[in-house]
């Protein structure tokens, strides 16, 4: 396919140059390839999500099979939906609309296919490596460094192709959709590079160069802007192109689109810290994140209204046309999500919502509603055109629409109830001042019924996608694919200038793609730089705690297993300074406690309790039994079993390389520690194994579970130690067992 497409070169311009009309062809093959990949990955990614949803009320659904436990499968679901489903959907729309808005074929067919095969190979690599436990644990950036480099290469190919097409365009001015595509290409590249910086240890393991608070800020600057510049800006570009097409009328206000674009890309980049409210992140950064998040509602709603008002006078069409139905619902969902997002970024609201299913509801309003429904609308609109026929069944598409809406209700409403219920139960005190629900499991049991309802919603949504897949397949069969669409347009140079061109106006800017790209780059860089640079260079942002020491060799390997198993998907390690949290978990978390955490493991969801002060709370034997079968120690727990930790031997061979790598990123392991680390590890492992015998457990000291127990018992204990001088911190790690 790649070779066939690559051989299609644009025909030479017509002999009659006086007419200045050029004949050329749009490449529909690449559009079709991305469209098919969108549907396939949508079904796979959503099905993975459904399996996860089932595991939350039926833990045995993991089959005690380590490769499909919740922790390992969750990033498969998020990556498959965000980068595979939405990513391919984004490319589908961009490759179709960009050619037509520029009146030019894509810059390079080879780059187009490199983009397609490279992107989808990366997704396959993700689907293999994540279940195997190769993960950085940083949300939406879990893929390890070799895959990250591949992402960078493919993204550069896409960006060159995008900008190259813009440069060779036959249209004088760049339409608003293209500005959003440019902002997407630039910003995703920056986010990916800055957040992805890590020191490689082996082929599938690396450590983030940032630690603790800095790592958290960079990660959520990335994480939030992945939402902004991967899930939002490209889809706004699609909205600005496909909504007018489907409605057959121009966008409501081109003026508003200018304000929408600059306001949105400038503000979005500042909002990341709202994911870290009430954490150990310095207050100034939290406040900036909150204020800019609230301001974000203005440009977001400007865009939403611009989309909806495009349909003024055409609402009768919405009743008949499933494409418009999907679009209206998608834009409405965008409006709801972008109103809710700023609300959740207000500190008082966030104190209740954070770590609960409320966030899950919010995310799924956006992805199922905005991204999902808009993708479906684009596919329903595109397939008849790609196959030069009409949609096989508009009726079936209408059924899909109503099923998708019903599915979303079944998904998000239970999650709102679940989130608010859990959040309030966590904070509830008795009249005597004690926690009303001191056992975390009480709050879990209360929300399990909502997890069942959520799974029904997810099932319905997937059913709708299957109906769409069938409908599109029948449409394709009924028509004939148009691989190359021949069109004519006036060449760029011979176009009469219809309007006077004055410098330094937006119209002038729209004819200068390089300048527009440069200004967009400045707009997105400012916020990130103002937030991140002071956090890294000003030491006062992370007050040092002298008793905090690096992890011991055994704890370090235990931490890496904790990362491998994806425990961070359900357990936070960040106790916020609320009485409800300090009563339940212990002293609130301090920035200085995480200075050796590469990467940070604060988490963003508490399906289980926070673990930052778990060290010393239970005996080693309790952890052993709990990991073997959580329900043996905690009846009603929904945590999966981890029996393989009891049988798998701890691999100590990478230990020296990991210690060296961590030293390179600033962890003060003493010189030569690598040579004695293994002995220390064995001594500490023997102690843990000895402790286990007091609980009638005979476990070999070389099992993985020993390392995990050592790590868990270390968590949050450093500040309980007697203060030592700062210089002591460089004398090496301290064992907790």
């Amino acid at each position, binding site marked *: 396919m790649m070779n066939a497409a690559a051989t299609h070169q644009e025909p030479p311009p017509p002999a009659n140059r006086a007419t200045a009309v050029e004949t050329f062809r749009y490449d529909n093959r690449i559009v079709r390839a991305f469209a098919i990949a969108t549907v396939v990955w949508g079904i796979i990614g959503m099905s993975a999500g459904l399996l996860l949803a089932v595991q939350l009320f039926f833990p045995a659904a993991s089959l005690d099979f380590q490769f499909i436990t919740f922790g390992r499968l969750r990033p498969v679901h998020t990556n498959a939906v965000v980068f595979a489903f939405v990513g391919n959907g984004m490319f589908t729309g961009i490759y179709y609309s960009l050619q037509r808005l520029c009146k030019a074929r894509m810059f390079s067919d080879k780059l187009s296919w490199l983009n397609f095969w490279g992107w989808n190979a990366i997704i396959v690599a993700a689907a293999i490596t994540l279940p195997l436990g190769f993960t950085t644990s940083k949300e939406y950036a879990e893929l390890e460094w070799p895959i990250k480099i591949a992402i960078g290469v493919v993204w550069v190919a896409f960006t060159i192709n995008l900008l190259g097409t813009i440069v060779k365009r036959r249209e004088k001015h760049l339409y608003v*959709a293209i500005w959003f595509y440019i902002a997407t290409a630039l910003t995703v590249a920056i986010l990916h590079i800055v957040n992805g910086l890590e020191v490689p240890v082996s082929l599938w393991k690396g450590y983030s160069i940032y630690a603790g608070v800095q790592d958290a800020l960079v990660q959520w600057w990335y994480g939030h802007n992945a939402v902004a510049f991967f899930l939002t800006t490209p889809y706004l570009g699609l909205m600005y192109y496909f909504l007018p097409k489907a409605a*057959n009328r121009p966008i409501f206000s081109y*003026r508003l689109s200018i304000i929408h674009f600059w306001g949105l890309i400038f503000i979005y980049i500042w909002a990341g810290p709202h994911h870290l409210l009430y954490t150990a992140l310095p*207050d100034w950064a939290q406040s900036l994140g909150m*204020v800019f998040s609230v301001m974000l509602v203005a440009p977001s709603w400007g865009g939403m209204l611009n989309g909806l008002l495009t349909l003024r006078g055409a609402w009768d069409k919405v009743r008949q046309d499933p494409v418009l139905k999907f679009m209206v619902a998608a834009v409405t969902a965008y409006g709801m999500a972008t109103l809710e997002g700023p609300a959740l970024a207000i500190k008082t609201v966030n104190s209740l919502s954070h770590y609960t299913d409320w966030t899950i509801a919010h995310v799924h309003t956006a992805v199922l509603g905005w991204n999902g429904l808009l993708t479906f609308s684009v596919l329903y609109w595109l397939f008849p055109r790609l196959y030069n026929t*009409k949609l096989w069944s508009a009726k079936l598409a209408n059924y899909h629409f109503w099923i998708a809406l019903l599915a979303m209700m079944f998904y998000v409403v239970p999650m709102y109830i679940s989130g608010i219920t859990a959040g309030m139960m966590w904070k509830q005190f008795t009249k005597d001042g004690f926690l009303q629900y001191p056992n975390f499991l009480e709050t879990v049991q209360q929300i399990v019924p909502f997890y069942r309802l959520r799974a029904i919603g997810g099932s319905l949504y997937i059913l709708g996608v299957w109906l769409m897949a069938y409908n599109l397949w029948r449409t394709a069969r009924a028509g004939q694919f148009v691989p190359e669409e021949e069109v004519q347009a006036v060449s760029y140079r011979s176009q009469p200038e219809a309007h006077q061109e004055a410098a330094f106006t937006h119209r002038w800017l729209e004819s200068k793609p390089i300048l527009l790209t440069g200004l967009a780059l400045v707009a997105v860089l400012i916020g990130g730089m103002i937030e991140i640079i002071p956090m890294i260079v000003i030491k006062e942002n992370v007050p040092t705690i002298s008793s905090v020491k690096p992890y011991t060799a055994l704890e370090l390997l235990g931490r890496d297993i904790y990362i491998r198993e994806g425990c961070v998907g359900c357990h936070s390690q960040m106790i916020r300074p609320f009485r409800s949290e300090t009563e339940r978990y212990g002293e609130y978390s301090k920035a200085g406690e995480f200075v050796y955490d590469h990467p940070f493991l604060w988490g963003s969801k508490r399906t289980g309790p926070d673990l930052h002060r778990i060290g010393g709370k239970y005996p080693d034997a309790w952890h052993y039994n709990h990991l073997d079968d959580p329900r043996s120690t905690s009846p009603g727990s929904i945590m999966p079993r981890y029996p393989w930790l009891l049988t798998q031997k701890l691999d100590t061979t990478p230990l020296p390389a990991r210690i060296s790598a961590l030293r390179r990123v600033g962890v003060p392991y003493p010189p030569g520690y690598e040579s004695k680390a293994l002995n220390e590890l064995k001594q500490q492992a023997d102690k843990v194994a000895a402790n286990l015998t007091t609980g009638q457990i005979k476990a070999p000291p070389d099992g993985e579970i020993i390392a995990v127990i050592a790590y868990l018992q270390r968590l949050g204990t450093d500040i309980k130690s007697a203060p030592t001088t700062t210089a002591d911190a460089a004398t090496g790690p301290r064992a907790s067992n």
Partner: protein
Amino acid sequence: MSQLIDELGGIEAIGIFSLCLFVVVFTAAMVLAFCLKKPFLKSMGELPLEDEQAKAKTPTPPPL
């Protein structure tokens, strides 16, 4: 106003600078947008609809 911003929690100068920066960017975008003339806005708004007219030889698919 200053006291209000102070109460946001340690935000101080960096917050005021950031908000001023936003005002500048937003104002610039507004000025640029409102300086555009209607014929240009109309022609740009209709750009996505033009490619149907540009098709020379490929028939337009029938409506759904």
